[in-house]
């Protein structure tokens, strides 16, 4: 029964492609557009969290991070136990960890660039540019926070939930990176950014979100099991990836003026399918 449900679910996801119309106009991005946009993205991001609209989100991230820090060691053990129970090998966890290390993003982005250049598809090129933009922008903030917070990774932890050394000596940081670079997770922010960009630009593919968020989840579990991150490193990483992806997508496309603005109408007119075929088209626009 379980297998049937899973199969049906996956089939449903795969079949979830609809013929969608292009509601946005995508212009071809320049070679370095993604780099040029990053400073502006940072400015936009610094304004966003403190707006009334995002206050709940900010509060949720703060509270969840605080609670997770408190229970970090227990949650880490639970994740490892679950991994053992499911029979996940070290290699499986290693693969899950590498979903977010940037190589997958590079690979997927290269495919989008190859497709976009070869077939003159601006949407693919914009998606690639936006992935680069959001991954680099989020990555910059992640690195800044890592260099300030100096938290130990689980596999080198000297206390149950990892020691924090705020404003560490930067030379020590670069000599012994795992002792300082746990908080927040850059892996999670990069996979999150990629998933959000793809799901925003390809809304007609309904499987992107569930499949993408599954990838985010697997990445999170994989990194806990390999001892690279604590669970409390994730909420801020997710928020950064999500926010910068939204900003990049917003900048990278323009809403089509004509889309969805017609008043309800019905019309009937002749249709010529080929030389020998003739028909009638009834068009109902709601």
């Amino acid at each position, binding site marked *: 029964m379980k297998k049937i449900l899973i199969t049906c679910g996956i089939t449903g996801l795969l079949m979830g492609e609809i013929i969608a119309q292009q509601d946005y106009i995508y212009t071809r991005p320049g070679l370095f557009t993604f780099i040029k946009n990053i400073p502006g993205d940072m400015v936009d991001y610094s304004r966003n969290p403190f707006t009334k609209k995002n206050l709940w989100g900010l509060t949720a991230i703060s509270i969840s991070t605080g609670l997770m820090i408190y229970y970090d060691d227990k949650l880490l053990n639970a994740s490892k136990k679950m991994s053992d129970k499911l029979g996940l090998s070290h290699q499986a966890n290693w693969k899950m960890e590498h979903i977010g290390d940037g190589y997958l993003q590079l690979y997927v982005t290269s495919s989008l660039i190859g497709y976009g250049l070869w077939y*003159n598809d601006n949407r693919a090129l914009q998606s690639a540019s936006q992935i680069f933009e959001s991954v680099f922008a989020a990555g910059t903030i992640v690195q800044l926070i890592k260099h300030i917070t100096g938290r130990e990774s689980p596999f080198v932890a000297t206390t149950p939930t990892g020691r924090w050394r705020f404003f560490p000596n930067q030379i020590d940081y670069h000599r012994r990176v795992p002792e300082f670079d746990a908080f927040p997770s850059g892996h999670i922010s990069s996979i999150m950014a990629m998933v959000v960009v793809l799901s925003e630009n390809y809304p007609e593919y309904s499987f992107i979100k569930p499949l993408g968020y599954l990838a985010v989840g697997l990445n999170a579990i994989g990194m806990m099991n390999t001892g690279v991150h604590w669970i409390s490193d994730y909420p801020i990483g997710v928020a950064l990836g999500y926010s910068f992806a939204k900003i990049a997508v917003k900048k990278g496309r323009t809403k089509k003026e004509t889309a969805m603005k017609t008043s309800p109408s019905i019309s009937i007119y002749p249709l010529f399918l080929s030389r020998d075929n003739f028909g009638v088209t009834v068009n109902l626009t709601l």
Partner: protein
Amino acid sequence: MFLWGDAFPQEYEILSSGEQNYRQIVPTNITKEILYFNGRNGADSIQIKQIGSIRILTRNDIPTPLKGILAAAYFSMFFYMLEAMYEYAPFTIPQFSGVFSVLCLTGAGAGILYGKLIKSGPRVQICYDFSAKPLNEKYTILKQIITNSPQSMILQTP
């Protein structure tokens, strides 16, 4: 691999009076007299009265199970390459350049190959020849075609 699939299954081509070949367009806006679009050379426009006919091209996509197999192959290829390359980790700068190039080239190649596959299927073509119609009617038909909201439905009787 099927994430970027066939970007937009429907494509539009117009034939204007005095021209012999259709040109592909991505409509952006329409007024009573002018159709604005993105063409091969960027943003452009045409007077509606000059449009002789419009063609709607719909591609028959490759079957979903095949897409699933391709997707599995695409990600398997990634992890295979990653595992093979990590045997030499930590990378020196030349090694990292190699890893970077291999991933970029393979990814780009996969994108192009996938495009070739999905574009190899047969195409369905619907042509509206309204060269003899009055401007008002041309405008109405064009607007309905290019607006084509998801609520819009076209019933065809061959």
